[in-house]
């Protein structure tokens, strides 16, 4: 039996990027905000000490910053005819845990989505005709547009101090930037990072082939930056312990390096860590949330009543909480009805490895998001007429650092252990680089999220079941873009090239990407979306669900800037519209 706590204005579930942004905005509005975080408190000074942060065994191999699978995990299968099994070690993706969430161990690549993405279905239909649309895809518009999104991307960049070079400033194409980006209202807050050797070589080769190479937009900043909350970041030192690690140098933007130091000083903000939300509490009509029930580390249950419930956990937990709490109708792929769990998508990771004899890349110099990229192969930046697929990928060279346990670049055919393996490691460690192509993942009818009928968590709640396989559309796309990347690789004249396009069925074992999207998507039509353009539930108007769970499909970009922008968008709607007139902000 849960003990009832005093009522608060707002309860926020999950204190990563989205939760921290919204908590900061709503406390500014004068609301009392309680944030519940299932993981521990983390801050740079205590948890990411410069003397101990660079620990590959602890952070990369043993996944110290990630959600523990004994606390919560998912089950997985490739299609509805299979029985799903639980993921006992994180392989394919790395959900985060604790304050800062996955935003602590992210790489920091900070692309905005392109304007066309927000009306993807309409855009592609207008351009190529509805007959050209692959039958398996269930692409959707987002119910919003670029003019509504851009101010919130701008807000996110300014809180994070994003480094980069504008390619399109107020409609004017800028030399040296990404010409394919949507018009920005302002330049990046900090200048691009200096480029290591690998990205420099790639950019040169790409330019010689006619591509427009640009510095990858990055949440690792290049110069000291103090954001509007007064929180200061320092320049990245390319230490090489970045993706999967917390940043010890205050250089990688995350909620803990940009927002929480200011947020925790506010008297109308409370954070409760190690507090896992069990469910949203609904009133008897099922149309209004009255608060949440959470459990502490002693197993005590607490009910926290609130006027407004904002769910900002990772994609998986956002959707699972909705399914467990009975918000919306669970999606059913057979009848194609229901929206909770619908349009789950992933990311299609491709790459090309280049082995040289005469180059030294010093690969230990690196950072999660330093590098050069091109966008000609992404999304609809090239003509898809007659190709039989849609989508594409962001192509770039981003050396993340090459720590000794995980980084043993050896050509195919090398033994996995023994003296030959050691010899090949020595030969190739310094002289190998790779070009990545982070490509789109388009939704289909059979890729979806639901509650597992068999496996439960330690509290007796069903695990989330992921049903996913790569659509044929995406596999065709992967082959196409990887071939194009190979052409650039050839122009760089390495000794050997190894192509790795995504192929076959999705395998949960090897790490691919943590860009897990959809399942509680935004849109203009309540039949095919769970939330309106303000991230407000169609069914429960005092419930906002924010995160990559809102993406109807995934373009060929990393999601974090968009998650941040959506958080600012939802907060703005609550501040400017909802608090004045609580109720549905869009009439269905």
């Amino acid at each position, binding site marked *: 039996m849960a003990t009832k706590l005093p009522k608060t204005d707002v309860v926020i579930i999950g204190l990563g990027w989205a939760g921290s942004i919204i908590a900061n905005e709503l406390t500014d509005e004068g609301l009392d905000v309680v944030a519940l975080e299932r993981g521990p408190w983390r801050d*740079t*000074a*205590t948890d990411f*000490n*410069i*003397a*101990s942060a660079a620990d590959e065994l602890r952070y990369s191999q043993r996944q110290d910053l990630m959600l523990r699978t004994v606390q919560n995990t998912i089950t997985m299968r490739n299609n509805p005819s299979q029985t799903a099994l639980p993921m006992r070690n994180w392989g394919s993706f790395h959900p985060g845990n604790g304050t800062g969430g996955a935003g602590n161990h992210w790489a920091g690549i900070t692309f905005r989505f392109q304007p066309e993405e927000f009306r993807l279905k309409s855009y592609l239909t207008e351009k190529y005709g509805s007959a050209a649309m692959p039958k398996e895809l269930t692409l959707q518009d987002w119910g919003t547009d670029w003019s509504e999104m851009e101010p919130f991307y701008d807000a996110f960049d300014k809180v994070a101090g994003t480094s980069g070079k504008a390619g399109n400033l107020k409609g004017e194409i800028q030399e040296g930037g990404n010409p394919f980006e949507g018009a920005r209202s302002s330049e990046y807050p900090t200048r691009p990072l200096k480029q290591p050797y690998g990205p420099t070589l790639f950019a040169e080769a790409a330019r010689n082939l006619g591509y427009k190479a640009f510095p990858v937009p990055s949440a690792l900043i290049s110069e*000291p930056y*103090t954001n509007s*909350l*007064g*929180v*200061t*970041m*320092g*320049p990245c*030192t390319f*230490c090489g312990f970045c993706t999967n690690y917390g940043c010890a*140098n*205050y250089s990688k933007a995350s909620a803990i390096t940009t927002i929480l*130091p*200011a947020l925790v*000083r506010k008297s109308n903000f409370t954070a409760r860590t190690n507090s896992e939300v069990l469910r949203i509490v609904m009133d008897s009509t099922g149309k209004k949330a009255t608060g949440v029930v959470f459990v502490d580390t002693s197993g005590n249950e607490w009910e926290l009543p609130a006027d407004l419930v904002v769910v900002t956990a990772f994609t998986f937990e956002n959707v699972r909480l909705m399914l467990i709490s009975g918000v919306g109708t669970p999606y059913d792929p057979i009848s194609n009805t229901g929206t909770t769990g619908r349009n789950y998508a992933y990311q299609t990771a491709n790459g090309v490895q280049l082995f040289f004899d005469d180059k030294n890349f010093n690969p230990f110099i690196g950072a999660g998001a330093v590098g050069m990229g091109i966008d000609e192969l992404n999304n609809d930046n090239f003509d898809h007429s007659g190709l039989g697929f849609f989508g594409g990928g962001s192509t770039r060279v981003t050396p993340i650092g090459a720590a000794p346990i995980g980084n043993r670049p050896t050509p195919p055919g090398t033994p996995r252990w023994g003296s030959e393996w050691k010899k090949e490691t020595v030969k190739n460690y310094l002289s190998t680089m790779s070009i990545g192509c982070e490509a789109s993942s388009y939704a289909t009818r059979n890729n979806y999220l639901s509650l597992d009928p068999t496996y439960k968590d330690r509290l007796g709640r069903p695990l989330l079941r992921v049903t996913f396989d790569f659509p044929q559309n995406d596999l065709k796309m992967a082959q196409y873009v990887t071939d194009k990347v190979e052409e650039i690789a050839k122009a760089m004249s390495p000794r050997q090239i190894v192509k790795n396009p995504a192929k076959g069925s999705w395998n949960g074992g090897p790490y691919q990407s943590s860009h897990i999207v959809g399942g509680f998507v935004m849109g203009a039509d309540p039949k095919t979306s769970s939330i309106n353009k303000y991230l407000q539930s169609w069914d429960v108007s005092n419930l906002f669900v924010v995160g990559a769970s809102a993406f109807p499909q995934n373009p060929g970009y990393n999601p974090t800037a968009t998650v941040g922008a959506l958080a600012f968008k939802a907060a703005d709607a609550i501040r400017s519209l909802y608090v004045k007139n609580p109720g549905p902000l869009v009439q269905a």
Partner: protein
Amino acid sequence: MKQLSLTTVGLLVLMTTVSFAQSAREDSFEQIERGRYLSVLGDCSACHTAPGGAPFAGGVVLKTPFGNLVGSNITPDVETGIGRMTEEEFQKVMSDGIGKGGYHLYGAMPFTAFTKVSKADNSAIYAYLQSLQPVKNPIESNQLPFPFSVRTSLIVWNYLNFQKGEFKPDPEKSEAWNRGAYIVDGLGHCGTCHTPKTALGGDKNDLFLEGATLQDWYAPNITADPHKGIGSWSIEDLTQYLKTGTNRFDTASGPMAEEVENSSQHWTDADLQAVAIYLKDGRNADAKPPQPIAATDNRITAGREIYADRCSACHTPSGEGIGRLFPKLAKGPLVNNDDATTLMRVVLAGSKADGTHAAPTGPIMPSFAWNLSDDDVANVLTYVRNSWGNAAPAVSASDVAAIRKGLQE
């Protein structure tokens, strides 16, 4: 007549009451509010509010070379606090160093500075303290060993170390300068930490604000010396440091971080400005820096390598640091002080800046005690103290060993 007389008496009574009410201003809002600000300006809580304890209920232990003294309970509790102390008695505490009942206070209560505080300000502080919630918390302030525990010894101490007298403005100087002097020399009692002490624990007044060691921290030179002091800092650098705990040169750590947190971040801009003006006009502005140790010295060449590996990622290879985050070591006043206690301490034990409202980041310096030997710490500090325009005496491994031992106790 009788009637009239009674009326007169009545009127007199009424008038007396009215006039009493008018003079009883000690509990007026303005007076208490002024007293609250002055108690912040004087950072009373530094000694009188224990960490996690009730405000002003005492209990902070001050480690002196003579033994421990404990900050007293100054809430208006009648048994354990100052509930029975009159305003006149409070005045004597501040200006004479004489406690209720006539005993002498130890110099840890900085009455040698507080004697400069005006009577009006003491009244306001008294009014504020009397408005607090009384907290019952018995404190034995005097925990000194014999013979220091005998308070009559303080009569001699006072004769040697104490010059009584309210602050007298210098008519030649500006109003702001005089306000700054009143705060620095008086209520702010900056010299309590920053002025070197005699063998008896009194201030060496001829070395006012030239830096002193206490509780394993070195409170640096804050005279206008351009090399060792704050002479190279602008007025804005000083006010920003006091207001936010950080500026383009340095970040407050240790007891100064507490001072910023509890006191100077709450000062008015006018008071911050006044203190900066006064400090900038201090002594030693014409001091000449010493010659640095030669770059070819073995200690310097060894230190350079350690610095590159362990320090340069944050403090940058040129010692410039990152403003508001990682202190600038090049031409840093603290780095160039003769005494390296704080530097050794911070390298060994690390340090955390307290975030302030204006600068909430609160960055940390990690501990290097586990991976740098005494020789390493000595060499890297000798290198830092003699590079990029710095010049200061070498740090010896035995000094580091002593600090390391002190930190382990």
